């Protein structure tokens, strides 16, 4: 019965396809080769001069860049279009908070863009939804480009055996220290070890006057991540199978204990629990002597506090003597629904070209190409971030990362509020994350 039904369906589909095909052919007498046929491998490729640009192809690119980055992107697009006549790139900018729902609405309505630049933690999530085009073995230049970029950011595109994007730009957090706070307290420079860091944070604190040695933007994982990774903390094992012994392991517990201790002693601003002075403002106005943040702070301070002297330092070293931090950034992805995959691949690989990466670097965007390290055209302050990136770690590349982030966030809240000890809170987070991994 079932088989019979299947045959009827197939017969109907074939009949319909023939009918539609006939109509279409009658309407537009065109060669019948499929539009996405792979280019013949043996035949010599026609040069651009010989083949006039056929019908121009327009591809869309969605992103969440800042004002100066968006202005610079227009130049990148112009350069790409000049080099690739026949391809037009239409860019659309979104606010970060609206971006995921915009992409989803687009996908659901069949109006998704051809390409997008999305947060590295989203790539596995969209790959799991089968929204993204697999690039390894499909995109001609993928292997060449993959070898050129930093391995950490590249890994964020990996899901279930394949790569679904390329790292377009990267970043990490380093320590920002307010020189005038340090000088007023008679301190020479930023702390180099976590032990020193905890001590200095308390020396620079005066809670009665809203003065704190260290401040975090919140309890979401990105905020404590530099301290967490520098202290040797881990969320899950390498193969992403269990959190037990990792998020609640001794290193992770030590990391959160350090922060909890600072908070209890009034050396960590209470703003992280919600509703306080923001870290950027607090740091520039001398209320927060130290914060951890990314390369974009240079431009933010240039606009909001032009007289403030920004000072960067590596995240203090943990007990094992190494510094670490967290990898951030964005991946360029191609959507599986794109009808212009060939042009989209050209655009994606251009975004990773030396030319485009250098252009974006002018406005503070850190390139992902390892071969650009030490390039004289890069801004000077990139050095510290590139150095920090060598040991910075990626968050868990998993579709349920948002939920894992939530579990750690809540554990951090519970320990700060004194509802649970650090160990109890992280034990609970471990069992919650294990449930997510089991699904």
């Amino acid at each position, binding site marked *: 019965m079932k088989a019979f039904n299947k045959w009827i369906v197939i017969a109907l589909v074939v009949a319909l396809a023939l009918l539609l095909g006939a109509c279409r052919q009658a309407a537009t007498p065109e060669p019948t080769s499929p539009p996405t046929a792979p280019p013949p491998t043996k035949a010599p490729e026609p040069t651009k001069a010989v083949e006039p640009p056929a019908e121009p192809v327009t591809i869309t690119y969605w992103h969440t860049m800042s004002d100066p980055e968006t202005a610079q992107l227009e130049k990148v697009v112009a350069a790409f279009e000049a080099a690739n006549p026949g391809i037009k790139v239409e860019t659309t900018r979104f606010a970060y908070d609206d971006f*995921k*729902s915009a992409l*989803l609405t687009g*996908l*659901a309505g069949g109006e998704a863009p051809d390409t997008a630049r999305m947060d590295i933690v989203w790539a596995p*999530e969209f790959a799991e*939804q*089968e*929204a993204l085009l697999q690039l390894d073995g499909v995109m001609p230049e993928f292997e060449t480009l993959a070898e050129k970029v930093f391995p950490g950011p590249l890994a964020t595109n990996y899901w279930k055996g394949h790569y679904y994007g390329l790292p377009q730009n990267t970043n990490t957090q380093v320590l920002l220290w307010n020189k005038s706070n340090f000088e007023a307290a008679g301190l020479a420079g930023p702390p180099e070890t976590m032990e020193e860091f905890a001590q200095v944070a308390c020396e620079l604190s005066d809670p009665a006057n*809203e003065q704190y040695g260290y401040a975090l933007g919140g*309890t979401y994982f990105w905020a404590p991540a530099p301290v967490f990774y520098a202290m040797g903390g881990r969320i899950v094992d390498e193969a992403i199978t269990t959190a037990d012994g990792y998020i609640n392991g001794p290193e992770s517990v030590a990391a959160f204990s350090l922060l909890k201790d600072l908070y209890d002693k009034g050396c960590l*601003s*209470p*703003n992280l*629990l*919600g*509703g*306080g*002075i923001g870290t950027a403002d607090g740091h520039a106005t001398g209320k927060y002597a130290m914060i951890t943040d990314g390369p974009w702070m240079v431009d933010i301070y240039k606009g909001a506090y032009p007289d403030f002297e920004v000072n960067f330092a590596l995240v203090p070293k943990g007990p094992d003597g190494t510094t670490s931090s967290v990898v951030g950034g964005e991946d360029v992805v191609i959507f*599986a*629904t794109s009808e212009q995959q060939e042009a989209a691949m050209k655009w994606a690989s251009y975004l990773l070209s030396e030319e485009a990466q250098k252009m974006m670097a002018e406005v503070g965007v850190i390139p992902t190409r390892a071969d650009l390290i030490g390039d004289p055209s890069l801004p000077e302050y990139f050095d510290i971030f590139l150095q920090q990136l060598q040991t910075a770690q990626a968050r868990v590349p998993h579709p349920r990362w*948002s*939920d894992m982030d*939530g579990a750690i966030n*809540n554990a951090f*809240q*519970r320990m700060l*509020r004194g509802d649970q000890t650090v160990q109890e809170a992280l034990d609970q987070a471990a069992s919650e994350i294990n449930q997510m991994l089991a699904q």
Partner: protein
Amino acid sequence: MRISPKRDRKETLTAFLFLAPGFALFLLFLLGPMAYSFRISFYDWKIVNPAKSQWVGLANYAETLANPIFRRAVINTLAYAVVTVPAQIALGLAVAILLNQRIRGRAAFRVIYYLPVITSWVIVSLLFEYMFIGQAGLVNYVLRDVLGLISENIFWLADPILTFVPIHLLGIWKGVGWTAIICLAGLQAIPEHLQEAAEVDGAGVAARFFYITLPLLRPTLVFLVVVLTIGALNAYISNLLITNGGDPLDLTHFVLTLMYEATFGRLDFGAGAAISYMLTLFVFIISVVQIRLLRREMDI
């Protein structure tokens, strides 16, 4: 004179023709999506590949009801309605009675009281959040440095209960103007001679309010209770902005912020659809019960 059945039919047809465009839009943009999301609520919905969605029956509903975060969100939403609806009506009525007097600058006051209604939810939510900031907020400054009522700053937004102070205040502040305008319309419909007659009979201000104004205002008040309750149960923007959707510890959600998080945060469209259907059903029942109860009283 009787209208001939033929003409009657013709007029009906004309009426339907006039109604058709509106009804088509209603069907396309309201009923259609509603029916579609009702279907989604029974699936483990795959947004990119709807064909791969799996039928899960009532699992989305059962899981939502069993979720302690959802239960807390229901309590928060009901508390918001219980606090803000009576407060808006009481204050709105008071403002309406004042605006109904022959006072100088009456038109200006009406505009001023109505201004919060037309301001953007987003902007005033952020303003209220800013006023209630723990370290440098205006409210803490007034309470601590001006009035000396507290000795240490209160971290309003870090506390799962105190967070609702700005959210409730905002809801009331923003709603009073609209409530007052509706009450004012109701007040002006009360014949003046009734008030005058009562005054002649020796009724004082209080007696006139309780025996003339309030009973005659009942239809207006019934309307307000029903509409404001529906509005309160659908509250969303202020909570999303002030608590960032549930901070701290997912204790401060409203039903709709949870629906948003399930749908666009976790991409669990089935759960999101289930939550919105449960809310719709609840709002419908509450509205019917309210209208029944209040109307019966009115008929006596």
